């Protein structure tokens, strides 16, 4: 019982601390940082015509529309559209609106150019999905309104650019054609809609732009059929490919008829054959075709003949043509030359000469140029200058002007795939310490300033200086390990295949590396990164080696595509070793064993359920074989609704002997009835989580033992009907079933049904509890439920005598094969927000109470004390329960504005929250990522184990000095007085 007393005391101690924590205004940015990104740019429009701020409007693959400062690359404004609201087209209208067409052409919005406020939004409807096209004619007016022409959802719409009202719309899908191009002729206010019907017939519609009246309809059949791509070369000429992609068909639209002029690709260039792809660059008079690894530039002559002008390597990037002065049009080409890129600007009617040729030094790490947008300006000598916006392979965005990179943005950080951390090197002689070391004088000065601040003597200037000093404290951005474990490297894997190391102190990039293994190549068509794992964490005998990380990826979309493994050094980012195009990677299991170099053993499971052991050394195999019988794992077949457990059996029997390959066998299976249940979420505990105590002392001095197992799996299933949107089913049709399953034996430990509820389910499993969030259809509200699971088999260990005489089973090992004797407690609460993700804080020793970190729909992170989600909450807790810290029962969970971890900031498109324990027990580090990145420190029970950052050591010192001085002064005074006394 003595133990329980101690625990009660400890608990009491914790309850003394407040439930909610918030920041003071001047603490913002002290230990948190926030970075804004936009993602990989897919379209850009420059706005440089008028005086004022030069800017570029971009639309990205992260569904962001942003206005960037052309001088520095900073974000003027940024709008993040929803996950399903992908931007199709952007344009400028009236010189003051940014027009975006999104959601497959169904939503048209106008944003105010200077500040990004939404001016109007209109929903365009149509009969079927189609290509989305947006044309903003400058001169077209209907009445007083300027008109925007939009082709989407199979219909052509004319929309007023003033208020977004649809003036007329014409259903072209009803005519049976799919429009590929819209051509607006400003001389006679006609719109030409060009498209295919099926694959063989070419159609041309002439529509009056004023009222949508269909004036003329021409069609012509081409025997070879069409591949579907189309490019407008000149005002009356189009280029397309036939269905075999071996012939380029030039289409001429004359007044009365349509003329086809086919040209074989092999006629353009002798030794080239294969399927051709039209590049979407609009070059006016010229078009580009990619055949195999060559790009052909073909000119369309005035009489409709095709003429090859050049052929270039496939790494070349081409911009659209830009008209810059009286009828002159230019476009840009970028070619790679070793560590440099060559930017060439050419006039579209003159291939042989260059308008501009610049050579720019380019970091190899950025890969090849994937997209380019150009803009012109007038130089000081009145000649024309050009600047180019480059989108690189690593998703970064660069502005190039006068042969230099003016600015660059690392926008691949907007698409983080996985995060892990690495410790920094220990401070020692050989290691470089941050350059800015304080001198003693500076230190004292700083503290004097702080002292002034605390004594409220500081002038406003001083306050600014103090704040600046606190924000730029060199302590936090040093490149060495600190005592509290706050300084770490955040290693981030992005969708571009680039790995970054960010410093937790200020978020700066320490190194970045575009992984060679994850770059597009012949053998690996569409590589994607999957996971980051710790490969080598040296701490004892391999101390002088750098830690390294394992990056896994695959060369394709499907799970059976070949895998990629790469090992990188955590301090430099160099790729130490990589395995390309190996067996497929379904699961990577870090095993709890390390070899003599402290490399962790990993078992990689492929799609035929074979296990592959890494590192591939005889030593690793030896270690593995000795622990052979104790390695289990499970797999989830979400589409089938089956969970399976597996164990390692023997070496693979293959044609080629492979001692690192292991066959596996099925041990158990759980089959969910397909007609009533469908798996939507599975959650496990984090591998590195630490639980401080197994016992939980409850109010009446009783002890409950937590059922703590690393092999606990939470599974949520819903009725197959209820997998859709919320509200698509009635409460009677839908139910949510949750399971707690032991993954070694497949035992269902707990199973519970929530009638009338549906997903999406977000859950987090920690210690002996699971918290999950779902929608209650009956109550029309979101709910959060908690299940706590306790081990009854240890419940008899309460007798002190037994403890004394050792007749307890507290120290006996836990085995999954022993029959579990568990009880569960659960409770549900209403929760106002819908949730994007849930995480839980974790600390070094697990003593500090836990907080749930809820990523809300508003892209913020809310810290919610776990005590609010205690299943033992009751309406009137007894005094003992109150003492224990049980909060009176409420039906909903409180959302306190102060408990937002992200305070006033937003992490746009929040996708994940990563929690890293610091070395200081009270503190945990939090990294939230989406389009933005946010990092902060959190102390769920306050920093009970350290002095606060603003503690003034100088004041303490000065006080002590003052006291000593005072003692001396008074001593001297009294001495003197005594002397006087004696002389009298």
């Amino acid at each position, binding site marked *: 019982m003595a133990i329980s007393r101690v625990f009660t005391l400890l608990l009491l101690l914790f309850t003394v601390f407040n439930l909610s924590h918030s920041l003071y205004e001047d603490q913002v940015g002290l230990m948190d940082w926030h970075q804004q990104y936009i993602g990989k740019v897919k379209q850009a429009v420059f706005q440089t015509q008028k005086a004022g701020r030069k800017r570029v409007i971009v639309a990205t693959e992260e569904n962001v529309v942003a206005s960037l400062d052309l001088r520095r690359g900073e974000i003027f404004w940024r709008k993040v559209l929803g996950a399903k609201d992908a931007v199709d087209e952007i344009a400028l209208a009236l010189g003051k609106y940014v027009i975006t067409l999104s959601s497959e052409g169904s939503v048209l919005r106008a944003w105010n150019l200077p500040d990004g406020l939404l001016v109007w939004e209109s929903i365009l409807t149509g009969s079927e999905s189609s290509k989305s096209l947006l044309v903003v004619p400058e001169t077209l007016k209907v009445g007083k309104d300027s008109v925007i022409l939009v082709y989407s959802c199979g219909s052509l719409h004319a929309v007023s650019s003033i208020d977004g009202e649809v003036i007329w719309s014409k259903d072209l899908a009803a005519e049976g054609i799919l429009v590929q191009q819209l051509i607006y002729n400003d001389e006679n206010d006609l719109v030409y809609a060009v498209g295919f019907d099926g694959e063989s017939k070419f159609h041309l519609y002439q529509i009056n732009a004023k009222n949508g009246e269909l004036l003329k309809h021409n069609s012509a059949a081409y025997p070879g059929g069409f591949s579907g791509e189309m490019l407008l070369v000149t005002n009356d000429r189009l280029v397309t490919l036939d269905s075999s992609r071996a012939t380029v068909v030039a289409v001429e639209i004359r007044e009365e008829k349509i003329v086809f002029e086919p040209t074989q690709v092999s006629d353009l260039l002798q030794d080239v054959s294969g399927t051709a792809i039209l590049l979407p660059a609009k070059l006016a008079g010229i078009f580009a075709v990619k055949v195999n690894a060559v790009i052909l530039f073909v000119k369309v002559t005035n009489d409709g003949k095709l003429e090859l002008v050049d052929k270039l390597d496939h790494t070349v990037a081409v911009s659209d043509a830009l008209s810059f002065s009286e009828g002159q049009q230019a476009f840009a080409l970028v070619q790679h030359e070793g560590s440099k890129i060559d930017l060439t600007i050419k006039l579209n009617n003159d291939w042989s000469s260059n308008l501009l040729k610049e050579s720019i030094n380019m970091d190899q790490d950025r890969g090849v140029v994937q997209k380019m947008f150009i803009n012109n300006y007038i130089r000081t000598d009145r000649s024309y200058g050009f600047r180019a916006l480059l989108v690189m392979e690593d998703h970064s965005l660069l502005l190039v002007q006068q042969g230099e990179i003016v600015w660059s943005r690392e926008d691949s950080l907007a698409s983080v795939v996985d995060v892990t951390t690495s410790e920094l090197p220990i401070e020692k002689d050989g290691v470089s310490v941050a350059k800015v070391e304080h001198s003693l004088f500076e230190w004292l000065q700083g503290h004097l300033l702080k002292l002034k601040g605390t004594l409220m003597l500081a002038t406003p200037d001083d306050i600014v200086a103090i704040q600046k000093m606190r924000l730029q404290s060199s302590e936090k951005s040093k490149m060495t390990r600190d005592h509290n474990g706050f300084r770490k490297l955040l290693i981030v894997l992005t969708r571009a295949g680039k790995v970054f190391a960010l410093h937790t102190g200020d978020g700066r990039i320490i190194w970045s590396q575009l992984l060679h293994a994850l770059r597009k190549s012949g053998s690996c068509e569409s590589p994607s990164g999957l996971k980051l794992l710790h490969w080598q964490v040296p701490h004892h005998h391999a101390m002088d080696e750098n830690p390294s990380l394992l990056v896994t990826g695959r060369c394709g979309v499907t799970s059976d595509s070949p895998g990629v493994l790469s090992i990188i050094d955590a301090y430099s980012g160099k790729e130490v070793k990589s395995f390309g195009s190996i067996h497929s990677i379904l699961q990577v299991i870090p095993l709890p064993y390390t070899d003599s170099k402290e490399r962790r053993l990993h078992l990689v499971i492929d799609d035929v359920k074979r296990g592959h052991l890494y590192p591939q050394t005889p030593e690793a195999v030896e270690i593995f074989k000795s622990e052979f019988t104790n390695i289990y794992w499970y797999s989830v077949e979400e589409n089938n609704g089956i969970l399976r457990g597996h164990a390692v059996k023997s070496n693979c029997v293959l044609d080629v002997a492979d001692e690192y390959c292991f066959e596996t066998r099925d041990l*158990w299976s759980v089959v969910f009835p397909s007609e009533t249940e469908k798996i939507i979420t599975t959650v496990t505990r984090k591998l590195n989580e630490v639980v401080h105590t197994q016992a939980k002392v409850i109010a009446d001095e009783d002890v409950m033992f937590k059922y703590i197992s690393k092999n606990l799996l939470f599974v949520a299933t819903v009725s197959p009907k209820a997998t859709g949107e919320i509200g698509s089913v009635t409460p009677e049709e839908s139910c949510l079933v949750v399971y707690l399953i032991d993954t070694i034996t497949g035992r269902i430990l707990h199973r519970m049904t929530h009638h009338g509820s549906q997903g999406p389910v977000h859950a987090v499993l920690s210690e002996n509890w699971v918290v999950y969030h779902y929608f209650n259809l009956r109550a029309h509200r979101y709910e959060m439920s908690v299940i706590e699971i306790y081990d009854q088999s240890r419940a008899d260990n309460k007798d002190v005598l037994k403890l004394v005489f050792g007749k307890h089973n507290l120290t006996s090992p836990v*085995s999954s*094969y022993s029959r579990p004797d568990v009880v569960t407690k659960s409770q549900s609460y209403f929760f106002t927000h819908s949730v994007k993700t849930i995480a839980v804080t974790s600390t070094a020793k697990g003593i500090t109470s836990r907080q749930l970190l809820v990523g809300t729909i508003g892209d913020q992170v809310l810290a919610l004390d776990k005590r609010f989600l205690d299943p033992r909450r009751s309406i009137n807790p007894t005094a003992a329960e109150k003492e224990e810290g049980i909060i009176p029962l409420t039906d909903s969970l409180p959302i306190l504005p102060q408990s937002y971890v992200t305070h006033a900031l937003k992490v746009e498109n929040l996708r994940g929250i990563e929690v890293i324990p610091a070395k200081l027990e009270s503190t945990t580090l939090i990294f939230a990522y989406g389009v933005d990145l946010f990092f902060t420190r959190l102390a769920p029970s306050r920093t009970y184990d350290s002095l606060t950052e603003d503690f003034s050591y100088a004041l303490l010192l000065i006080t002590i000095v003052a006291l000593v001085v005072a003692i001396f002064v*008074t001593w001297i005074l009294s001495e003197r*007085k005594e002397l006087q006394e004696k002389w009298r």
Partner: protein
Amino acid sequence: MRPSMKSVATLSCFLLLTLSLLIPNSSCFQSDELLIEDDEFIKSPDLGRPSISPPTRKTVSDSGSDSKVQFVLEHAFGDSDFTPAGTFSARLKTWSHGAQTLTKLRFSRKDLSREDKENFKTLLEGDDFYRIRVPSNVISPPGRDYIISSVKARCLPQTGLDEHFVIHMDGVNILGVNYGSLAVCQYPRQFKLPSKWAFTSHTVLKSTEQAPRTPAFSEDIGSTEIGGEEEGVKPLERSFWAKYWMYLIPLGLIVMNAVTQAMNMPEEGQPASQTQQVNGPLPRGPGSRR
């Protein structure tokens, strides 16, 4: 406590049995949930598992029809093929609203053949898996797939071979089987041959639990929520003492110092007061200073 509980359980069992004998057509309540301690039953055919539902509920729910259903338990030694090992027989109860549930599950195991025993011995020696499987649908076996469960063979032998099935059901579908023995069985497991080559089987059917309903307060909402918030929004300001202790302590010391000085003062001031006394009697306070 334990024996009395048991006796109550057996008594209730008996009562239920007699009741079910008395009312032959009545069927039992759908609840299949059983706690192992309360009524684990042994495969003896005439000691049918009585339901734990209270007898009063039985009369309420006799709207469905019953039929018998059987399904096979198969076993495998290590990686061998599955062979039949026994049969489960149960009553399939069809409810008026169409749902079907299983009740009165019984299990009869085949005796182990000589070959089986040999196989089992090799399993025990190699600390390998003894695997069982049942169909995932009892009406149309095997359903979508078999439910497999396995246990290290060394976990089973006690005096005989002790096995416990906990079958998780949803209507006529089996979701999962928890299979194993009650004994503690942790790694490294001891090699032990059973003294008796016969299985003692215990079977429990489990169906899903209902989630507790979210508490709903109609009147209390305001007060409790406010109460909760108040607890949350405790004054964040630090106390006066916490903020200014560093000034207060030296101040206090200085004051104390001053006071002690003042205490010493009068001695120094005596000559002055003496002169005053000469001039005339004046009131003299302890703190009067010049």
